[in-house]
């Protein structure tokens, strides 16, 4: 079974664990817990009556048997490192560990006050190991998916930079807003519970509106005051910080998934196991990016946008309403960012700081392609996305974001103008 499937299992299980905190919750204190879910090609379901034992350096701490919902929890005496073992003999017929060597999870680090969720991956129990081809294929798909999401956001950031010169540190919050609004309309207990495709519409509108409001409310007034770009960057940092924490207050800190797609079954394409939502993400992003390209090349507004990006004064003197073009750019950036947020939430989870985490990779993409070059941003996004995911071949996956950022730094060292940038932009 491939790493990709495993990862989406982990993702699904973590989400299930987080969403279902209500179940057998012990009183406060440290604990190790999990939810056993068997995932087959076509269906998935909780596994009941399986024993899990927790120990510390050979000393038994406690055990638990999973309930009807697959949940188990073992209280531990305090912070520290523990081991958990699943009793394979209690597994029901037809269910096995997807990796027979993973019956014991060692090195479970529990922090103070933490209820640590751990995952045993259950499935049909095929013992076939992952082929290099499968692994490479699924990581490539994941990389393209991440690149597709980064590209949507990066194009917006890059366009705003091109027409105003502002490096907007609040761009990540557009992404988060899109995902959070979609979550509200899709899955919030107080929301209308629309299907995700429908819920994406208000999310995209909210993104565009957010772009427009911040242009009219913050950035245009600052330009009118002749505020320097450095000062505006600091303002954008403050804005991002305020919005991010406001979202944290409203949405709370837990990551949540769009329930309809959380554990989407995997299909085989060319022998590579792929969840359809990832292909959808890549396809949707490419179609939208193509639309943006056509808009920039073929329409009057797009041409005007490029003219403003090239030379603001010249554009203004030839009769282009620069402020109107900048407003359109902000709406576009907001819309594209919100789409990126919905897709990011679809394929991973919705979380209050998801946009900020993505922002650094967006920067990496934009600098890699060449700051201010729209097509460069798209190219950079896919390079960063692939680099981040394929790097898990060599480094632990917790370091993959760091890899994206290191790619950025190396690029600045060897070719600071980026792949498609021109030398004079950087001086």
């Amino acid at each position, binding site marked *: 079974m491939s790493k990709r499937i495993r990862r989406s299992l982990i993702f699904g299980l973590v989400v299930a664990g987080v969403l279902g905190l209500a179940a057998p919750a012990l009183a406060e204190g440290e604990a190790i817990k999990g939810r056993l879910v068997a995932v087959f090609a076509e269906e998935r379901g909780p596994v009941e009556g399986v024993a899990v034992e927790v120990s510390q350096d050979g000393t038994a701490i406690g055990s638990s048997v999973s309930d009807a919902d697959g949940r188990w929890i073992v209280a531990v005496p305090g912070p520290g490192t523990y081991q958990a073992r699943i009793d394979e003999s209690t597994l029901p017929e037809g269910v096995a560990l997807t990796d027979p060597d993973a019956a014991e999870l060692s090195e479970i680090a529990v922090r103070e006050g933490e209820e640590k969720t751990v995952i045993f991956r259950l499935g049909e129990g095929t013992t076939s190991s992952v082929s290099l081809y499968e692994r490479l294929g699924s990581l490539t798909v994941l990389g393209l998916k991440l690149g597709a999401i980064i590209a949507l956001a990066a194009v917006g950031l890059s366009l705003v930079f091109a027409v105003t010169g502002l490096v907007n540190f609040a761009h990540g919050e557009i992404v988060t807003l899109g995902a959070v609004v979609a979550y509200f309309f899709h899955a919030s207990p107080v929301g209308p519970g629309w299907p995700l495709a429908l819920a994406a519409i208000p999310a995209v509108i909210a993104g565009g509106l957010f772009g427009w409001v911040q242009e009219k409310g913050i950035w245009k007034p600052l330009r009118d005051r002749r505020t320097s770009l450095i000062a505006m*960057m600091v303002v954008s940092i403050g804005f991002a910080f305020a919005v991010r924490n406001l979202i944290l207050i409203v949405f709370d800190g837990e990551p949540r998934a769009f329930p309809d797609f959380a554990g989407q079954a995997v299909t085989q394409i060319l022998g590579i196991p792929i969840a359809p939502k990832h292909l959808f993400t890549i396809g949707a992003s490419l179609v939208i990016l193509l639309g943006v390209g056509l808009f920039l090349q073929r329409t009057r507004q797009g041409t005007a946008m490029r003219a403003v990006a090239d030379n603001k004064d010249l554009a203004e003197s030839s009769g282009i309403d620069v402020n109107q073009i900048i407003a359109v750019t902000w709406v576009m950036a907001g819309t594209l960012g919100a789409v990126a947020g919905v897709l990011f939430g679809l394929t991973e989870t919705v979380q209050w700081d998801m946009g900020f985490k993505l922002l650094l990779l967006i920067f990496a993409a934009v600098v890699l392609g060449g700051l201010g070059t729209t097509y460069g941003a798209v190219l950079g996004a896919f390079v960063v996305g692939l680099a981040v995911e394929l790097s898990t071949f060599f480094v632990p996956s917790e370091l993959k974001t760091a890899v994206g950022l290191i790619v950025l730094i190396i690029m600045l060292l060897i070719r600071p103008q980026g792949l498609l940038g021109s030398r004079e932009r950087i001086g």
Partner: protein
Amino acid sequence: MDWLGVLTDGILAVIGPFTAAYALSAIGLNLQFGYGGLLNFGHVAFMMVGAYGTAITVEAGGSLWLGILVGVLAAVVLGLLLGIPTLRLRADYLAITTIAAAEALRLIIRSSWAEPLTNGVFGIQGFADAFFDLNPFEPAALYGIDPFLVTGRKLWVMVVGWGVVALATLFVRRIIASPWGRALKAIREDEDAAASIGKNAFRFKLQALTIGGAIAGLAGILLGIEQQNVTPDAYLPQVTFILYVIVILGGAATVLGPIVGAIVFQFLFFTLDSFMSEAQANVDWVGRLLSPSDAAQVKFVLVGVGLMLLMVFRPQGILGNREETLIDDR
């Protein structure tokens, strides 16, 4: 509501070692951003490598004093590594690179891969005993005037912390008044003009970045010693943003600005924190609207809003000179 309690918390926070460490780090940032015009958005990384340099050295069997030296050197090396590729480029490249490098470094430090050296997410504890052995005060006794009481342990950190802040302030005043300081400010104002009279802008900026970084490294060491603890998740990007608020609030490019900024910021921050938790617990409609953890987040929203408003309406802060701030295009 317990107004006196709210006020006491604020004042105790202001004189505490935390404020001293933030003031010290802000002095470093002020040298970079205020005097040098360098947009370093990864300032927290200097504090992080300082603290980790010290903790790792002690873990490896070195003395605390050697550790402090290693920590400061690590911050200097970080300054060189960040500065050499980016300082020739435009300001936004430095901003992007520094924030990215700081986050990448934090992710590496907290990864299982670096665990043999850094102990991963758990960090390193209890490396500063040598510092507390020198404590001339009675560690557990209370000093001060009621209700402003601190333990002897804390008092010792405060005395040393504020002492280092004073030394760093005198040092910055000295170098800024020197020809080096004038050249640095001239480069901030107009790099080409400074270059035309033979000043190597790149070298001055690199020096400002590394000296400011070394001061921030000391600040990180101070925080680490005070808590006897370094963990990677104490060095999130938001620390940098808070330091920007402090520098701009006090007055960028002023000698005393970082200290005034740190004191005022810390007072507002902690008073607001106490105020919000009091209000959450005692005022009916606030309690219904916000959970306790929500109430604790409100202050961060206001930090962000405060940074925006300051930058726009009073970029010179409390002490600064508007002419010297980077607010207007020239």
